[in-house]
């Protein structure tokens, strides 16, 4: 909104930043100017070079070429400590907080100055630091208790502690890397309000994101990166974003720049009702999960949403037999599988796309052939006898998967680690689909994937749905849920607190369920017209 004259030097000016990692050209001669006191968006897909660029700014990575100017003066940072000293604070996607420490201890660690001897003898003045933290927190409305142990805080609160930490060090420019990736919608909204406030107080903010709505909500200006190069810029402040037509036009333009083509369309789908495939009743692990009832029919995608860590992983592990249930019933096509081993469940037609690809989905060092055939226990259908596993058969399957799911590069013998995350995931999805499952558990199948790979995975899931299989989709990405799910259930503290069908999907209500601002878990499904009444109750 401001009509600031361009005379005032930019808070940050990057000129010709270039960086290669081996064969990968991560940043290609990038120019970027961030006006002081604005929120500047950095939009791009995974691997577009956003994080690399910001790490260069923050002194964590050294550019091969280019110049950095802060407030008009050229600088070179050899370490992040120097960047901090120049007033730049960065909040990484993965928090660098210590759970066992209090908020105050996290703020002051490593900051004291003076000789080693003095620092070994002199008492740390924690109460004074806590008072200052409280003042800073009150000033910007963080609402953080400086004495709280960080491990007891929610993800949203930790995010704020990270920001507080940057401000504590005197940061006038904040770089936030995907700050809402792990936040529930209400927490994200709280963060947006906080960032608005910081901007009003004169802090410059660079927001790395690939979420359109938050870019539109916050940014004054946005720079779009693709394949390591700047492909365009757009001024958002001063635009009439309240008008849907204007908004849609700008959004479409930005997406076009970001992915280099129009937003991929998903095939149309009609609601179908198949037979009951998965029937879960009273399932509990006796600790923090359940009891929980859940039904999934054929030709149906049921999403499981909720703030991370509210029982999604437990649910998947219980269904797969990776965690022991103390009570309850899991029926697949009418057979109770609760006492079955994981292998027997796989044979019964359950397939599983693991939530953490690196931990449980693939073996990085093994070849694509090994990874494509790894889950087929007993060697079926690749073994011709008890002592022999046919490499030819396995190669055949791998090559089929590579072709059908467009895995790049299309080489069956190379190690899995040499593929990008998106291509690894395509192979994993293909492998699980190759089981022709009755029930597919797809846990966050598109986490960390770019738009192209995401739509490929979504299309594969929808194809499976069209074939009559049941799909359970634990996901943190509500956009994904809205795009492909037929129904959703909301998990909170290991229980289902809300259910909706696709026709009822409403983000505010889901957010309230996720954050628990609607009281404690209620066992039954809410009445369909509940949302509006709940609004007044808040």
């Amino acid at each position, binding site marked *: 909104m401001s009509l600031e004259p361009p005379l005032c030097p930019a808070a940050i000016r990057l000129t010709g930043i270039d960086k290669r990692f081996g064969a990968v050209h991560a940043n290609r001669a990038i120019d970027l100017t961030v006006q002081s006191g604005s929120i500047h968006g950095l939009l791009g897909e995974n691997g577009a070079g956003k994080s690399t660029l910001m790490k260069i700014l923050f002194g964590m990575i050294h550019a091969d070429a280019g110049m950095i100017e802060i407030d008009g003066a050229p600088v070179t940072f050899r*370490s*992040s*400590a120097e960047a*901090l000293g120049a007033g730049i604070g960065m909040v*990484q996607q993965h*928090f*660098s*907080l*210590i*759970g*066992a*420490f209090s908020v105050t*201890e996290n703020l*002051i*660690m*490593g*900051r*004291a100055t003076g000789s*080693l001897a003095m*620092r*070994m*003898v*002199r*008492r*740390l003045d924690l109460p004074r630091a806590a008072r200052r933290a409280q003042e800073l927190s009150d000033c910007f409305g963080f609402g953080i208790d400086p004495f709280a142990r960080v491990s007891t805080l929610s993800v949203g609160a930790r995010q704020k502690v990270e920001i507080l930490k940057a401000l504590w060090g005197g940061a006038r420019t904040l770089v936030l890397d995907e700050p809402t990736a792990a936040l529930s919608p209400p927490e994200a909204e709280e963060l947006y309000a906080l960032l608005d406030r910081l901007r009003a107080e004169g802090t410059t903010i660079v927001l790395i994101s690939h979420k359109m709505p938050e870019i539109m909500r916050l940014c004054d200006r946005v720079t779009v990166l693709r394949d390591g190069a700047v492909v365009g810029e757009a001024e958002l402040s001063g635009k009439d974003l309240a008008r849907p037509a204007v908004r849609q036009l700008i959004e479409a333009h930005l997406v076009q720049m970001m992915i280099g083509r129009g937003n991929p369309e998903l095939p149309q789908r009609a609601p179908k009702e198949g037979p009951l495939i998965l029937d879960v009743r009273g399932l509990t692990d006796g600790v923090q999960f359940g009891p929980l009832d859940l039904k999934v029919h054929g030709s149906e995608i049921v999403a499981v949403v909720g703030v991370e860590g509210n029982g999604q992983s437990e649910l998947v592990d219980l269904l797969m037999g990776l965690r022991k249930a103390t009570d309850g019933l899991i029926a697949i096509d009418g057979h109770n599988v609760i006492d079955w081993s994981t292998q027997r469940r796989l044979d019964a037609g359950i397939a599983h796309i693991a939530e953490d690809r690196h931990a449980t989905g693939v073996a990085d060092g093994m070849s694509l052939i090994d990874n494509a055939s790894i889950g087929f226990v007993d060697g079926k259908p690749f073994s011709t006898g008890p002592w022999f596993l046919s490499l030819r058969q396995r190669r055949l399957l791998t090559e089929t998967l590579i072709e059908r799911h467009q895995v790049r590069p299309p080489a069956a013998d190379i190690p899995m680690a040499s593929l990008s995350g998106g291509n690894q995931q395509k192979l994993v999805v293909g492998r699980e689909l190759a089981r022709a499952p009755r029930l597919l558990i797809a846990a966050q199948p598109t986490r960390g994937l770019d738009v192209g790979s995401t739509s490929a995975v979504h299309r594969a899931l929808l194809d499976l749905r069209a074939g009559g299989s049941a799909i359970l989709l634990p996901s943190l990405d509500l956009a994904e849920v809205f795009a492909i799910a037929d129904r959703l259930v909301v998990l909170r503290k290991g229980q289902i607190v809300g259910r909706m069908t696709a026709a009822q999907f409403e983000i505010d209500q889901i957010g309230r369920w996720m954050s628990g601002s609607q009281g404690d878990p209620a066992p039954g499904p809410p009445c369909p017209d509940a949302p509006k009444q709940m609004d007044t109750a808040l």
Partner: protein
Amino acid sequence: MSEFITLSLFASTLHLSVPVILPMLGGLLCERSGVVNIGLEGMMLSGAFGAVVFSYLTGNPWLGLGGAVLSGLISGGMLAIMSVLLRGDQVISSTAINLIGAGLTAALVPIIWGIDGTTPSVPKIPTLPLPLLPQLPVIGPLLGELSMIDVLAFALVFIVWWVLMRTDVGLRLRACGESAAAADAAGIAVTRVRIAAVILSGVLAALGGAYLSIVTLDLFQASMTQGRGFLALAAMVFGKWRVGPAFLVCLGFGLADAVALRAQIFTDELPHDLLFALPYLLALVALATFVGRASGPADVGKPFRRA
């Protein structure tokens, strides 16, 4: 029974706990900085040996103490190079320290003195009585038998606690143990902090060994530490990596040792070996029952490398 529980039982409890307290402090600093150190036993043995060698060569027991410090710098430095700089597996590196400590000292005794097993007597640290303290009522008789060396050892408990829990240096050290990546992001030189902590643990453990060889006794004997390095480790775990509780556990081990010694005098019926196993049994029971799932520093055992 009244003569069994006497002032001298109290005094010998304190004496016997010192050679567990010193390596415990070393191990605690080391693990709070994020490096597993099961090599305390070997560090103690080489410290005990270094002290005797220097005392023997120079005739001055105080220089013997300096010899212990030197051996601690070497053994701690070796562990630091293997586990911090070269990022080797910390358990295996410190096991190597144990094997080297036990093997090398036992092998060097016959090479230097020409006899197997036990060295001849060397000059020992004189018992320096404390001024004033013995004259005080109540605590006079209780603590009067302590020497300056004991008091210094107990003072170290307080000093380590103060530095670790109350100062900036301690906060940095604990940060490295809880999350090396977070500490690095806060501008803390993780590698440097860990190297310093590992070397310091070597020195403290070596001093514990020297206490056995040239304060309590005046000689070196192969495997003379008898597992006190491991007891120190047990005390640290049982005390949940906190200085105060771990110190109390060390006193408990000292008491068990003292009771075993006295029981040996008072009765012939109990087998002595069993009595001397008392502290170890105590450690075993304690670790298996009371502690439950002891949780150490979150990042302990993980070598740190910048991304």
